[in-house]
């Protein structure tokens, strides 16, 4: 099967600091890839490069055959296909839950107000907060805000979803509801790249795992195999620490 998202020898620096030192990764259609590794190993930066929020210095990133780092690529168009969920959930505080989700379908896709709201209501119900349509984010819990962010991304009907430590900023008791929502998406066949510290999620939900160490993919393979029998010494140490 052909890869739908592919990174080849991707290099990225912030000034003199090289954060990605030649990343190779492939994600196939319907696959869930979990990216694990210590903070500062380049996991999140890699996600930002995939939808072009951060430029890269070398290598190529292709999404469905479109080269992301090509100057002629229409990034706004490409990003419609790639939903992204952030660590800080980033709901728009001046809009109600419904308006948060309906905004991009309306202004980016040009849907009518009513059509956009219909999609928004459907997606909010899908992530389990269909009763909060007219509530402002300030009155939602962290877990609800993160599910709102997921619904907002889904409303653009993306083919791929990127999760950047979606549960790291949540209170422990709220992590479960967000992970459940992500599980649901995975079971629906969504292609996902999940940067996470939740080893349980990585093991149970993802097909593949990639372990990042100091800007490189140090080990990758089927999730269960990699996590239960890590070959790399760094990964062994990392897993011993997070468990």
């Amino acid at each position, binding site marked *: 099967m052909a890869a739908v998202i592919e990174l080849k020898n991707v290099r990225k620096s912030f000034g003199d600091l090289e954060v990605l030192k030649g990343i190779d990764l492939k994600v196939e259609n319907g696959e869930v890839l979990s990216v694990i590794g210590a903070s500062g190993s380049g996991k999140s930066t890699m996600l*930002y490069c995939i*939808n072009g*929020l951060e430029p890269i210095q070398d290598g190529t990133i292709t999404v469905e055959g479109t080269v992301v780092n090509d100057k002629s690529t229409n990034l*706004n*168009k*490409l*990003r*419609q296909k*790639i*939903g*992204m969920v*952030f660590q*800080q959930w*980033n709901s*728009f*505080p*001046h809009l*109600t839950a419904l308006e948060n989700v309906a*905004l*991009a379908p309306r*202004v*980016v896709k040009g849907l009518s107000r009513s059509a956009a709201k219909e999609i928004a209501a459907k997606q909010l119900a899908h992530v389990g907060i269909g009763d909060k349509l007219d509530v*402002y*984010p*300030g*009155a939602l819990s962290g877990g609800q805000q993160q599910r709102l*962010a997921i619904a*907002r*991304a889904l409303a*653009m009907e993306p083919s791929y979803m990127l999760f950047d430590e979606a549960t790291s900023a949540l209170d422990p008791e709220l992590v479960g509801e967000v992970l459940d929502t992500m599980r649901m998406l995975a079971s629906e066949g969504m292609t996902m790249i999940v940067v996470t510290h939740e080893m349980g999620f990585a093991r149970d939900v993802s097909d593949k795992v990639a372990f990042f160490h100091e800007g490189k993919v140090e080990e990758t393979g089927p999730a269960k195999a990699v996590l239960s029998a890590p070959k790399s010494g760094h990964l062994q140490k990392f897993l011993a620490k997070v468990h």
Partner: protein
Amino acid sequence: MDYQFLWPPVIKALPELVDAALLTMEVSVVSMIIGLSIGLLLSFGRRSKYFLPRAASTIWVELARNTPVLFQIFFFYWGLGEFGIFLSSYVAVVAALSFNTAGYMAETFRGGFNAIPETQLRAARSLGMSFLQTQRYVIVPQVLRVVYYPMTNQFIWVILMSSLGMLAGLRELTGETQYFNSRTFRTFEFFAATAVIYYIIAKIVMLGARLIGWRIFRGQGT
């Protein structure tokens, strides 16, 4: 005290004073709209990565905030005459107040933009929104909320500053008051009445702004 208060001339002149107050409001509203628009552009200019817009907007802000308003009005009314540009009192006063407001609001807007986390921009861009769409639907509405109350203060300030327009020959509220003063010599009565009118205008604007603010921002509290 041997001064005899005499109010009938003031009461007789009230219709004219109210008309002049309306001119004061018109000048203030127009200056505010122009000043806000330019102020927003200047705040973008100050954060530009290019030298020219950055330098131009910095000079504007520095001059507007660090010279007397009266000088600014005189510059537009008399100063430009030296270069063969003759503005009417009305246009000169509007230009000066817009110039001043733009300078102050640019700084307020800048603070407002700095208050919006960078991640809001990323979230909007990740949804496929263009830079301009992101500004229009996500960033600017949030900035407006931050700058709303400083903005209403500036509006009241503009209304009060517009009284200096009298010195460029504009018959706004203060100019009109001075006109009646010179005709009747009822100095205290006229200026006292006008002070009350300014006070009422300022209070109405403040209360109206609170009401509108409450209506727009209710529920958004974080």
